[in-house]
């Protein structure tokens, strides 16, 4: 009777020991993975940081202005080139015998034409 109990406890202790051993190594390897991921993230963060700095450096207004003038032939906007939105007239309503109807398909910009087809 005593022997049976002892062997049970011994078995339990060995099983716990093995379980703990496996768990420990699993945790260790997972921690290693985590550290690697963190390291990668950090590297990426650093790279993004440098890229952001570079982006700002390349986007200096003086440089953009120079590019715009030289390569795109752009100039600063003049007041005469702008009009207030209220002055743009609405599209005239086309009247026919049946009353108002929407413009024909070939008169509609493609993005709207698609919507209509779906209807």
């Amino acid at each position: 009777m005593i022997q049976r109990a002892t062997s049970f406890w011994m078995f339990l202790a060995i099983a716990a020991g093995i379980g703990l051993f496996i768990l420990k190594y699993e945790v260790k390897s997972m921690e290693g993975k985590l550290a690697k991921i963190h390291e990668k993230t950090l590297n990426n963060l650093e790279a993004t940081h440098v890229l952001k700095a570079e982006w700002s450096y390349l986007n200096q207004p003086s440089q953009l202005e120079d590019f715009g003038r030289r390569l795109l032939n752009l100039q600063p906007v003049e007041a005469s080139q702008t009009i207030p939105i209220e002055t743009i007239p609405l599209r005239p309503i086309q009247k026919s015998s049946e009353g108002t109807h929407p413009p024909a398909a070939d008169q509609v910009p493609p993005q709207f034409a698609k919507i209509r087809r779906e209807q």
Partner: protein
Amino acid sequence: MIGRHPLFHKKRRREPPVSSNMETGRSRLLIAGAIFSAAFIVVTGRLIGVTMFVEKSQPQYSRSSSKAILNISRANIVDRHGNLLATNLKTSSLYANPRIILDAREATKKLTSVLPSLDRHSIYQKLTQDRPFTWIKRHLTPRQKYEINMLGIPGLDFQTEERRVYLNAALASHILGHTDIDNKGLAGIERHMDTFLRKNKEPLELSIDIRIQHILRKELGSAISEFKGIGGAGIVMNVRSGEVIGIVSLPDFDPNIPANIEANTLFNRATLGVYEMGSTFKIFTTAMALDTDRISIRDRYDATHPIRISRFIIRDYHAQKRWLSIPEIFMYSSNIGSAKMALDVGIARQRAFLQKIGILHPSPVEISEIGLPLIPSRWREINAMTISYGHGLSISPMQLVSGVAAMVNGGVYHAPTFLKKSVKTNEKGRRVITKRTSHQVRRLLRLVVTSGTGRKAAAEGYIVGGKTGTAERVVGKKYKKKALISSFIGAFPMNAPQYAVFAMIEEPSGTKKTHGFATGGWVAAPVIGKVIKRIAPLLGIPAVDEKTAKIERQLAIDLIPKKKGKSRLASF
């Protein structure tokens, strides 16, 4: 009684020495058992505590060693739209342990071949010292680091450091300032906000817009070179919040290379320099006069003769030699009329008024270079008269702009700031003049641009208003002839002003195009016009037809108001 009971006697007599020993043994066992179980309970408790609860003092080895957070020792500085202005980048710095260096002569030779800027002699001395650490060169480029690694000299090593980088070079140099090699702020925002930048992780948001800053710097710079000025300053400010959108002082410097900064470029003309501002002060004098109950826009002053007071003579530059209405005094920039107006208001009230709009205090902006205004120690009649047209009192351009902003925005003073205000903070500001006076000042400023000295500041569609200022520079105790400070303070759109724009050019000389003139109207006003034309679309201000009846009605002013008031005779 009990002791004498036969039963007890009997027991005592029966006690054998063996059983007494047993008793002692048993009690000792009990005590030992109790101690051991107490100890085990403590151990168990501690075990549970350590395994199940986290204590604060306990260092978290496993976590702190790998955490994906980018640590930079100084917060970034960004503009109002989030564009990076200053950040820290990692660099490598080279150091040596002279005790390990085997052949200092050979090492010196190799090092100077890769880094030619190093001095051979001083490097040799550094490498032969008897100490374990000495810097060789800090902040190397990746290529230099690679080449040094390829040399393979034992005793040399790298330390990863951070370096402050200003991505727009000189663009916002005076406001950002710069840092020393250990990233300690030496000037500008970097110095004023040093502890904030060290402690905070979040970027510091400035009120500056780099696009506006660039346009202002470029236009001011081309005006300075056109008129051969020695320097200048420019400011764009949101009159409704006090936020400074752009601020430039020229010449400026590249904060990336602190060693190469020339001392004279460090001087911030926009906030540290104090100048006699000249006629732009007439905005304050007129607003102050109109804000009293006694003086109205319909009053007139005698500007027929120059004023003689003690040994001074006050003359008009564009002399009309007759009685002038207040709009005329403003338009022709009459010193005589302004002086008389100031005396009418009174010395004490003038001083109190200037105090209210921040002229007598240093500007409260967030950089360390702020000039103290030069105020007369005794405010006498002659001081009141000269101050009325901007002489005898020196202030920084920043003070002038924030003062004028309060005159045109409906009469509320907002302290100027370089930090972005969040949309939610709805600061009320401080009322300094009535809404009505502010409306009158707007009309007067518009008049100067439509038909006065500031016509060159016009930007069709954006309803510009403003005032020119030309002052002779004080050198020592005398005015230096021909050394002018020409400025213009404008605001737009004048029917509901949103932004104030200021430009100042120091010691310009006239050109053929300006017929030899170098006054504010010829030199500084065109800068304002060009700047407004370019920044208004960026600031989202629509161009309008200036000739519509509604706008004309909002800004119309009679040069000689019809309803004739009493003529004023000044006291002398």
